[in-house]
């Protein structure tokens, strides 16, 4: 672990020095996507300039190099999440595709009439809509675990919703709206005791904290590269080998086959069985570089910085009487995402106004409409931090926010 100097770190991120509307960018939309350090951009460039090839099938120098880089990235991901074997690491396009893969392959095969799939009410659409399709096709049932007043989760509600009929429990480790970090390990233990498998959506957790699949005893874990300094177009599906082995392939085509006859096909070994077509070597190389960078910074530093910023932002927001926060108000089990609304102001107007001050935040339903309905909020504003954000940026954000109501014609 190196000592943490945020100003020096910010020099690694060209975008953070961009001007927006004449002001320096204050980027607080990291839950949507993060910026990329030079180290990652250089790795991509270097790959294309020196090693580019279609891997797996090449006996020539570049083909071998590309294969080694691609498989090296897989091994890096394995270490990063502490999987047992690279056979358990599938590269996908993003977390969404990974969840669809599980739904189409595992879901269509193992869910039967009357079975139940359980998710949290705070799930991202990517962890809801695929399951709706499965339960509709299979005459199964999709059940929601609701939250407490404090936007946290009650084990009693968990034990009511997860029953002997439950076959799949699928939940985000951290909510991209509320910032709540859920007790996945405890839930997994309970779900396993009922005979259900557990899918962890790590899109918001993997970039921000050490996620250990063995420790969590997750049966599946999915996440996206672009939310953790990596390029767009690459994501990861981790699955326990015993499940992946017996699941049918999802996408079909080159690379995932063993023998193709005119009328039938046998499939390749894991992990290639689930990777059809030319792999995204660039994406894998970029994701590996991102993991290198993250581990160089160190999760301890990352978490300390994010906690400081989140605690400070919560404190400042709580001082504003017309602000309502959707999410835990203290720092226990919460990440660096804060959703809020301003009385009388539509989040869309809030976003437009703070944008003119250079502040990038997100407004809308955050791909979590069932949660919005549950919260009775048609939309919220959201800020989300990463380790490269600063206290000064929180100040600029709060300053710009304090001007919103005046712009919209309110006295204060």
């Amino acid at each position, binding site marked *: 672990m190196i000592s943490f100097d945020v100003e020096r770190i910010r020099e690694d991120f060209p975008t953070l020095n961009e001007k927006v509307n004449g002001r320096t960018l204050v980027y607080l939309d990291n839950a949507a996507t993060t910026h990329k350090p030079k180290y990652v951009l250089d790795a991509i460039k270097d790959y294309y300039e020196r090693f580019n090839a279609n891997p797996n099938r090449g006996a020539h120098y570049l083909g071998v190099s590309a294969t080694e880089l691609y498989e090296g990235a897989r091994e890096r991901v394995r270490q990063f999440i502490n999987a047992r074997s690279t056979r358990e690491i599938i590269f996908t396009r993003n977390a969404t595709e990974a969840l669809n893969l599980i739904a189409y392959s595992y879901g269509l095969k193992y869910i039967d009439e009357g079975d139940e799939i359980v998710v949290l009410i705070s799930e991202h659409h990517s962890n809801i809509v695929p399951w709706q399709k499965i339960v509709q096709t299979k005459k199964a049932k999709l059940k929601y675990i609701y939250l407490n007043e404090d936007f946290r989760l009650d084990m009693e509600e968990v034990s009511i919703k997860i029953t002997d009929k439950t076959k799949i429990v699928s939940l985000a480790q951290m909510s991209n709206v509320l910032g709540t970090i859920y007790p996945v390990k405890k839930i997994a233990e309970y779900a396993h005791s009922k005979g259900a498998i557990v899918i962890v959506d790590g899109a918001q957790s993997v970039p921000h904290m050490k996620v250990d699949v063995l420790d969590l005893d997750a049966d599946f874990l999915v996440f996206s590269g672009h939310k953790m300094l990596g390029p767009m177009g690459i994501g990861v599906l981790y699955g326990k080998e015993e499940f992946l082995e017996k699941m049918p392939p999802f996408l079909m085509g080159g690379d995932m086959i063993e023998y193709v006859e005119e009328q039938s096909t046998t499939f390749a070994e894991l992990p290639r069985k689930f990777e059809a077509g030319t792999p995204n070597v660039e994406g894998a190389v970029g994701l590996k570089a991102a993991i290198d960078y993250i581990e160089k910074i160190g999760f301890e530093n990352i978490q300390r910085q994010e906690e400081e910023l989140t605690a400070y932002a919560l404190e400042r927001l709580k001082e504003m009487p017309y602000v309502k926060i959707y999410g835990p108000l203290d720092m226990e089990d919460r990440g660096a995402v804060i959703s809020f609304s301003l009385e009388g*102001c539509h989040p*869309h*107007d809030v976003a*437009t106004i703070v944008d003119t001050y250079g502040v990038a935040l997100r*407004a*809308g339903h955050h791909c979590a409409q069932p949660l919005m309905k549950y919260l009775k909020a048609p939309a919220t504003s959201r800020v989300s931090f990463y380790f490269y954000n600063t206290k000064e940026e929180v100040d600029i954000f709060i300053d710009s926010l304090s001007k919103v109501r005046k712009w919209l*014609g309110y006295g204060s």
Partner: protein
Amino acid sequence: MDLNQLYTELILEHSQSGHNKKHLEDANCIERGHNPSCGDDITLELVCTDDGKIKDASFTGVGCAISQASTSIMIDLIKGKTKEEAEKLADIFLSMIKKEITDDEELEVLEDAIVFKNISNMPARVKCAVLSWHTLKESIKKKDSR
């Protein structure tokens, strides 16, 4: 675009006063319009007479200041007009937003609605401004085909 040009007094007045935001007892032409991505959701209510006039109009629903104001300003404009006239105005408004019509003289018929002229410079907000006008067109089209 300057915020001063966006959140003008006129727009704020319309978005907050709510003088057109209500139900109409005798509405005979009700149309819902929505932008799922930002959550704007309005319902336009018209009272159309047999000779094709819009006798009264109102709206309900939620949305940002831009969509609420645009709806309210539109209602002020079309009240008392014929459906053909209203449709024509909607077309002119949409052409203004697309920058197909830029001549201020040509736009004069839009009266207060001309205040949205510069919204085309804010791609993220265009949808908010045009929602009610599209809804109006949809409403007239359906009414006619009934």
